[in-house]
């Protein structure tokens, strides 16, 4: 099925490189990995010739080990009631080069989802009509869904019902609570 589709696309879009990525054995949703330059042409072919008129789900996945960010499109056909055809595009993780073509001109439904992927992953979609942050505020500079994101340190220690007991344990018996053990060891080494 997916092999057939791959052949069809390869004939229709000259120069495209397609790779099949398998899903989990049970899910049976193999994906097509398309190179960035031919992603738009491939998507256009899928929309016009395969009647995949419904772009359901768009999201990013961060792969620091590969050094790449993947954008995943799930395409369905409302006319033929088939699907999904999974389309994947990869881009380098570096913020300047992290660019993929936007599919919003083909499917309006991608508009907000691509903005979300830009906000959370830092993927820039070329050709997107209105690429702004959607969930975080405009002044925010990070892309929090990347695996190397460091959240701000606003997580303060708060009292527990066992507070008095713990303090007394430290003062009287010298029992160190597990949370403080690391700090104490560090201090001892110094």
């Amino acid at each position, binding site marked *: 099925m997916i092999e057939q589709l791959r052949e069809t696309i390869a004939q229709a879009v000259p120069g495209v490189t397609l790779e099949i990525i398998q899903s989990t054995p049970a899910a049976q949703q193999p994906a097509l990995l398309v190179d960035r330059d031919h992603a738009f042409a491939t998507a256009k072919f899928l929309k016009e010739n395969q009647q995949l008129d419904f772009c359901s789900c768009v999201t990013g996945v961060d792969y620091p080990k590969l050094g790449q960010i993947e954008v995943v499109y799930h395409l369905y056909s409302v006319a033929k009631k088939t699907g999904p055809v999974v389309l994947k595009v990869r881009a380098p993780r570096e913020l300047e080069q992290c660019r993929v073509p936007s599919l919003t001109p083909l499917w309006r439904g991608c508009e907000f989802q691509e903005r979300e992927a830009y906000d959370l992953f830092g993927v820039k979609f070329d050709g997107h009509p209105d690429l702004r942050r959607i*969930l*975080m*505020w*405009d*002044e*925010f*500079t*990070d892309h*929090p869904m990347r695996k190397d*994101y460091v*959240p*701000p340190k*606003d*997580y*303060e*220690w*708060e*009292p527990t019902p066992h*507070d008095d007991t*713990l*303090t007394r344990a*430290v*003062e009287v018996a*010298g029992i*160190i*609570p597990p*949370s*403080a053990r690391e*700090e*104490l060891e560090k*201090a*001892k080494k110094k």
Partner: protein
Amino acid sequence: MAYDEGLKSELQKSGIFVLPFEQLYNWGRKNSIWPLQFGLACCAIEMIASAASRYDLARFGAEVFRATPRQADLMIVAGTVTKKMLPQVVRLFNQMPEPKYVIAMGACAISGGPFKDGYNVLKGVDRFIPVDVHIPGCPPRPEALIHAIMTLQRKIAGQTLGQDQRWYEKSATTEFPIPAFGAHDLEPPANREVWQPPRNYTDVTIAEVLKK
């Protein structure tokens, strides 16, 4: 103040109530709390449910949900306060006339709740505005909100006129500073005048232990 209790009850039988002005004033205030119609997340649905058919908040005089902060005197922070929403919450609180009260409804408003680890979630609304009543629960049942309103009513009934109240002091600030959006976090991340981080026992006692 000294009352003749016998005389008082004697008068009450004939429909004459003798009581200090303060009590009368508080009685009026506590039975006509107007909450701000301001839902943030899941708890807002339970807030609506407590005002709706079965639970009927009107029995406690608190059913007049006002859509504008200028007419409200109770803010029910019903749901998760995110960092993006917080400046608006503080601004709404500033716009409410004194005397004003806050109920932190649900685990999220108290401390961040299940979403505490999130980068966009504020770890408790009491970091920026003073909270009078906290209700635990995720979400609290409507009965819990009614209980919170009754707790607040008790608090109002116990307040004295002209003493120790924020809104009677001329120097007191009723405007709470609104944090700005920073590059990574809110700036500042907490209002230190309202909220102090609790004493960290690891800071103090470990040093003492090391001395020994």
